[in-house]
């Protein structure tokens, strides 16, 4: 059974442990600015929304990549960036309608969530279970993908 990240904003307190865990795993330092998951704070509403790649099926980023640098991880189903291939053209950053592929100017490559290879550190670090890594069926992933399909350029298939 493939698993995916499930995010429940109602449980998030905005502590950014997820961002630190992500950046520590992927960048080797506690550095929220380089995290692949971001917590957005809606001050007026008293609401915190963690947000990252939903690993969508027909991934926009993957399709748009001109050098085949984004590939499906056969084990986790995540769409992974192959750093050696990425030339840093940034087309994926404008192609992803969810805004979850970002350019890192210090490396000249793009970065996105790769589920830490199947052990997402953001979920492990979350103190309130706002971020969990669970069976894909239970996550409402279909619902999210359905939503994603609304952004599709095709009206009907």
């Amino acid at each position, binding site marked *: 059974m493939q698993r995916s990240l499930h995010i429940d904003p109602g449980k998030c307190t905005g502590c950014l442990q997820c961002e630190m865990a992500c950046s520590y795993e992927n960048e080797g330092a*506690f*550095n929220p600015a380089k995290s692949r998951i971001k917590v957005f704070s809606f001050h007026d509403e*008293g609401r915190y929304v963690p947000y990252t790649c939903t690993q969508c099926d027909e991934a926009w980023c993957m399709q748009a990549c001109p050098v085949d640098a984004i590939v499906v991880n056969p084990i986790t189903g995540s769409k992974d960036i192959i750093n050696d291939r990425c030339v840093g053209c940034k087309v994926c950053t404008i192609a992803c309608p969810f805004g979850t592929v970002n350019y890192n100017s210090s490396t000249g490559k793009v970065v996105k969530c790769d589920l830490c290879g199947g052990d997402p550190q953001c979920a492990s670090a979350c103190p309130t279970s706002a971020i969990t890594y669970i069976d894909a069926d239970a996550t409402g992933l279909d619902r999210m993908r359905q939503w994603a399909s609304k952004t599709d350029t095709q009206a009907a298939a």
Partner: protein
Amino acid sequence: MAWTKQILRVNLTEGTVNAEPLNMEWANEYLGQRGLATRYFVDEVDATCDALGPDNKLIMATGPLTGTMASTGGRYSVICKSPLTGVMACSNSGGFIGAELKNAGWDMVIFEGQSPTPVYLHVENEKAELIPADDLWGKSVWETDELLHQKHQDPQLRIAAIGRSAEEGCLFAAVVNDLHRAAGRSGVGTVMASKNLKAVAVRGSKGVGNIKDPIRFMRETADQKKVLAENAVTGTGLPTYGTQVLMNVINELGALPTRNMSEVQFEGAHDVSGEAMHEPRKSDGKPNLTTNGACFGCTIACGRISTVDKTHFSVADKPEYWGNSGGLEYEAAWALGPDTGVNDIDALTYVNFLCNEDGMDPISFGSTVAAAMELYEAGDINSETTGGIELKFGSAEALVAIAELTAKGEGFGKDIGLGSKRLCEKYGKPEFSMTVKGQEFPAYDPRGIQGMGLTYATSNRGACHLRSYTVSSEVLGIPVKTDPLETEGKPELVMAFQDATAAVDSSGLCIFTTFAWSLENIAPQIDAACEGDWSVEKCAEVGARIWQLERDFNNRAGMTAADDTLPQRLLKDAANAGPAEGRVCDLDQMIPQYYELRGWDSEGRLTDETRSRYGLPA
């Protein structure tokens, strides 16, 4: 390690910004944040300087664990000489800017001199510059925050700013960061204003690395987060009810200072309590409390995020206050509520918003209003003095009106901005001022909690609960229950709390962890992160050294044993109800023993032996 080992020195007079290496010898003796900044401060600043003059400095300092994954590792402190007390000011805040500063590569920023015109400091990693702030002067903290975010086009920019109260000379002005977190006490915002420094805006993307033993650090911090999660207080109580759960506890205990400390229980306590914040209100069926919010890295998340009832008189025609913001924490709720006799939770929430919006310490503000109310009721001031406000105990309207004036430094708000001590002196009733060393009391009556009497009297920054929160032990039973009415053993207890707190305040962690953690839990995290040996014993010794250093500075600033006292009301007038009925605070029974434990002479000065024992500068 864990330190970035770089500090930023900003000379406001010259308009220069320079990097310099951190003094690692001092880091080894004073750890970081409160301790290390104090070491720099006492080295560079004449204790007798004018707090609002160019010779005072203001330091924003992080700890070695700030910006790391250690739970609550998001703290920073603001250190300067206080215009309110004339002694050390060291105010600690959470939010996000501390971690951001660390992420930008800086352990601390030292501001010196005075800028001829308003400026703000913008820091983006190694790039730091002073930028004219003429357009920001006269704006509230919230407006400043918005304008700077727009100007720099960066939603992630973290901002600390002063409000209009500070610009207008309010002596208890705070430095507010991230809209509703504050280095609140002792007028650190007033000092910032005196330097013409409106704000500090920081963006860091360098990351906090340099961990001595990363694998051990990750394991230690994960283990200790588990301790917090499994502890009933830090795992359940604080996230659900916040600090405000204390309102009913302290009231029941007969230690809730009421109506300028003339009473020890408040009949309206429940109406302004943590429990009341959960109750749906009549107008829209929503509770005051929306959710709990965390500071950077905090797995406790005690912060209250609340709204004011849109139909409440204070905001009915002000939709800009209808959204959520940082809501009532216990000390603020007490000062604005029981101490002024106001039991209207929406008025309290609104005034708390104003305190954040314009950078006022709500404890000092509430306490000063309480003193003014007593002056008013005693006939020492009247509605002519107040500009028509009927400043009676219990009047929510008066509280709201006076808050709006004080926030902007207008009318009688100017007098409130003097703080309780100077206000009461001005109107001829110094005995009405509930202060120590010029700083207003927080929310515990030392007649009902004796250890807090010694805490207030000996605090290095004037009356304050956060220098040794013996309430933990005397009321809450953490780590062990002691009798709040007993004075025996309290000097030792106070001293142990003072030292441990100084160490925690120097680490980058939040003191609230100590409801579940002791130095036994904290020292291993510091030790895994920082070069050198950071045993429990060393941490305690560093805490004690910091305390002595602060005291030494205060002595040189002119403070003597005579200042280690409490208002007569607490020493002479017995409590009128509750378990402490008939009791006063028996401070005299505790002070001499405390001095002896500290290694001070009868004048409260460090002996030479003490100074050399801690290796303090001559």
